[in-house]
């Protein structure tokens, strides 16, 4: 009973924070001719309700793909269509073909913000609440504290309710997928995850861990019996869900190809704008984009990505466990973010969601990561005039985590899940006892750098010759942090089951 009240209070608090952030400006507010993501979403509502399905992804006189053409999978288009029907009921001017371009008004902003809130409330928030309620071996208070921290994660709130996007839908579906698969509701879980992929193709970052985990489960059940049946069922579920989502686009080959071309713009280059991944950081020293030909860039990116995530995925296939699954989600998504093609800074949210899920197990490192992930989006947030909400939500999140999990008391080797790693290293270097202290120092340095950079970006003007100085510095610092986390999470994964295996041998 008490749990219900407290959980309700936590959800309401999350909603209040979301709504107050949404009172601020959005992406591209008052900036013709292109505006921003807000206008893109409005434009998609206009396109989907006024044009027949066959024309949604094609360039035409009514649909200029250069002006925010649809570049998400069909489920986004259907969602836009649904919103457009509601918009038509309230005020058709909002989605009138051609004439509604750049439409901005208080009432329209209220409507758009409301659509985000409703989608969040229906999909993401119930998933978070259910996830926290199903956690095992912890007290009710800790479950509720966990829910509070996840719901207060600033990155998602600022992007969805500030900049304006619908990440909570795809992340919510992915979370339902994680829930389903972790608690042996494999078919429902894979269905949910397919919906996530069909909403935003970036969810493919999470697809390998899902695949490996489910494959591992099939192997465990025995490929000659139940495992094979499960494999077939999963394959059917995935294929059926894809067919269902893509049905109108499977009628002609050209339709399917065009949609794929829109979803995966391989000719757009290794990266666009400033993003905290390896390629952008590396290009500060060496302009790879200009030196290497296109297909070589693709190859390099492909190789690096897969080399970095292969160990974790193999481990997961051989030893599937929900815990390993969560950590592999983190490391896979992070590998993709750091090494993949055409990554946007908002894609860090795909890494943040799995990190939120392991908040309970490694509170200190997770909180640190989530702070860095929000910081890495600083240039974008400043462009949208979201400085005040950013600072406030980051402080609130930090306080929530610090008080709920007592993170500063959990920096021992054991708490950081590095015990087995340290033991292995101590076989060769007996004096290797200073790992926690190094990590604490690194944390302090990281936080101080982030605070200083934020202050500098806000108060100072960059020098004339280097107008992007601060953005590049932010990307650089974030990238270094992310590399450190990549190594850390991979260490946890690789040394985790080793410990488990040793335990079994001893027993």
């Amino acid at each position: 009973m008490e749990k219900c009240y407290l959980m309700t209070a936590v959800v309401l608090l999350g909603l209040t924070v979301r709504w107050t952030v949404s009172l601020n400006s959005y992406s591209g507010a008052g900036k013709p001719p292109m505006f921003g993501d807000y206008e893109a979403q409005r434009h998609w509502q206009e396109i989907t309700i006024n044009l027949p399905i066959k024309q949604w992804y094609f360039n035409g006189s009514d649909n200029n793909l250069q002006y925010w053409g649809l570049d998400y999978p069909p489920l986004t288009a259907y969602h836009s269509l649904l919103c457009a029907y509601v918009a038509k009921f309230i005020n058709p001017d909002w989605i009138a073909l051609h004439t509604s371009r750049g439409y901005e008004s208080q009432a329209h902003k209220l409507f758009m913000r409301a659509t985000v809130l409703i989608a969040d409330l229906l999909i993401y928030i119930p998933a978070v609440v259910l996830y926290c309620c199903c956690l095992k071996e912890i007290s009710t208070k800790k479950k509720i504290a966990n829910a509070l921290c996840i719901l207060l994660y600033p990155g998602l709130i600022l992007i969805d309710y500030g900049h304006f996007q619908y990440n909570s839908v795809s992340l919510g579906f992915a979370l339902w997928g994680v829930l389903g698969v972790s608690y042996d509701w494999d078919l429902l879980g894979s269905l949910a995850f397919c919906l996530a992929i069909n909403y935003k193709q970036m969810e493919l970052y999470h697809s390998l861990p899902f695949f490996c985990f489910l494959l591992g489960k099939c192997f465990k059940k025995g490929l000659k019996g139940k495992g094979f049946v499960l494999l077939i069922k999963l394959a059917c579920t995935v294929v059926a869900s894809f067919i269902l989502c893509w049905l109108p686009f499977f009628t002609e080959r050209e339709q399917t190809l065009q949609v794929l071309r829109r979803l995966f713009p391989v000719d757009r280059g290794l990266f666009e704008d400033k993003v905290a991944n390896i390629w952008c950081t590396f290009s500060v020293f060496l302009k790879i984009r200009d030196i290497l030909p296109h297909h070589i860039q693709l190859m390099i990116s492909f190789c690096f990505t897969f080399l970095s995530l292969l160990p974790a995925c193999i481990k997961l296939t051989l030893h599937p466990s929900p815990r390993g699954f969560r950590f592999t989600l983190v490391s896979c998504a992070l590998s993709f973010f750091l090494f993949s093609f055409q990554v946007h800074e908002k894609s860090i949210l795909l890494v943040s969601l799995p990190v939120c899920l392991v908040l309970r197990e490694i509170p200190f490192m997770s909180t640190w990561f989530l702070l860095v992930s929000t910081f890495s989006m600083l240039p974008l947030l400043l462009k949208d005039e979201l400085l005040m909400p950013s600072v406030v939500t980051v402080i609130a999140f930090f306080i929530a985590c610090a008080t709920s999990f007592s993170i500063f008391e959990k920096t021992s080797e054991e708490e950081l899940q590095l015990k087995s790693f340290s033991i292995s290293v101590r076989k060769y270097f007996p004096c290797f006892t200073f790992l926690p202290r190094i990590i604490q120092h690194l944390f302090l340095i990281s936080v101080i750098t982030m605070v200083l950079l934020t202050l500098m970006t806000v108060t100072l003007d960059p020098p004339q010759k280097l107008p992007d100085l601060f953005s590049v510095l932010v990307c650089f610092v974030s990238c270094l942090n992310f590399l450190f986390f990549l190594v850390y999470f991979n260490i946890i994964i690789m040394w985790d089951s080793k410990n488990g295996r040793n335990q079994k041998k001893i027993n």
Partner: protein
Amino acid sequence: MAALGVATGGGNWFSALALGVTLLKCLLIPTYHSTDFEVHRNWLAITHSLPISQWYYEATSEWTLDYPPFFAWFEYALSHVAKYFDQEMLNVRNLNYCSSRTLLFQRFSVIFTDTLFVYAVHECCKCIDGKKAGRELTEKPKFILSVLLLWNFGLLIVDHIHFQYNGFLSGLMLLSIARLFQKRHMEGAFLFAVLLHFKHIYLYVAPAYGVYLLRSYCFTANKPDGSIRWNSFSFLRLISLGLIVFLVSALSLGPFLALNQLPQVFSRLFPFKRGLCHAYWAPNFWALYSALDKVLSVIGLELKFLDPSKIPKASMTSGLVQQFQHTVLPSVTPLATLICTLIAILPSIFCLWFKPQGPRGFLRCLILCALSSFMFGWHVHEKAILLAVLPMSLLSVGKAGDASIFLILTTTGHYSLFPLLFTAPEKKNLFLIGWKLSTSLAWGLWKSSVNLYSLSPLGS
């Protein structure tokens, strides 16, 4: 790292609550603000640019200074900080000036002055008996009280959206109540005197203070059966209380007495020409009375009992502030409201005099005075319900019966504040706050069940 660990992990929930609500207030900065924003900007301008002799005469803007002198001095002090934000806001002629820096300054001034409120809540928590509470943090009365006071949604709506400075004023009131609980009567009296000269609406609860201090402080002992012992009267205490009130009033009104401006000050402070009900009706007795009058007049017109030409044209529901005559029922004068209020507070005053029950009895009387004045007062604002809700929070963590009354009071009180939120996004916020109201409902329900099981009714 260890120090940080102690600071954050030491279970210092009070700081977390205070900091959390402060952050929420920062998030509320871009919300809608009412004309009260312009009112306070105007007062900053008046106190900064004009000499004292002009403060209560200045009428360039329609929002003339109608708070007592201490509040004017407070605005004067703020204006010295304001000039570093935006000099233009201090120009009396800049009506409705609202640059982003002005907004930032004003909002931050409210948030900053709320520190007094946080301190007062901290003091109030010390007065709560927590011995019988459970070990769970969320069952401790101190925690519940802190949440109810620090996160009071009525205060959030009125102060941080609608825009007013009730935070630190309520802080002063709660602090004086806390001092009375701690038997530091002189300080309590001093704080209340100061409060009166900040905002004279607190006259609503002055009878409670007066009677309590006279009965329980000036008479130093009681007979065994609790009735008054006349020979224990301490002239010294009475004189010292009187001296405090006199000195505070002298400090406040002295300059204006010297300038012979007292009548003008009082006419600004007590504008009886403003009509029986405010633009937005406060949900009090006169609202019902006026509604009944309207209904009867409509029926009367329909049934041809009344002559349409004799009906006054001014409408009470027009949303304007003005004098008004009732059609069917007798018109109400300020004197009538005063008499009604006095009759309403008499029972509690009698109880406080004849059967004093210590500070808890005083608190009950205070709440009843506030509620009675709200119900029967002249030109009551709906924000005045906060005067009753905040002290009631203190009582509600003590007894189960009080908790259930508090639930009703706080729900209806906060609900009645909704018309203060004017625009569409804030109306959506209204729903959210409505949801948060249901949280306070949840808190209240659960808290009262806690009270039923763990706390026995304190023998107050």
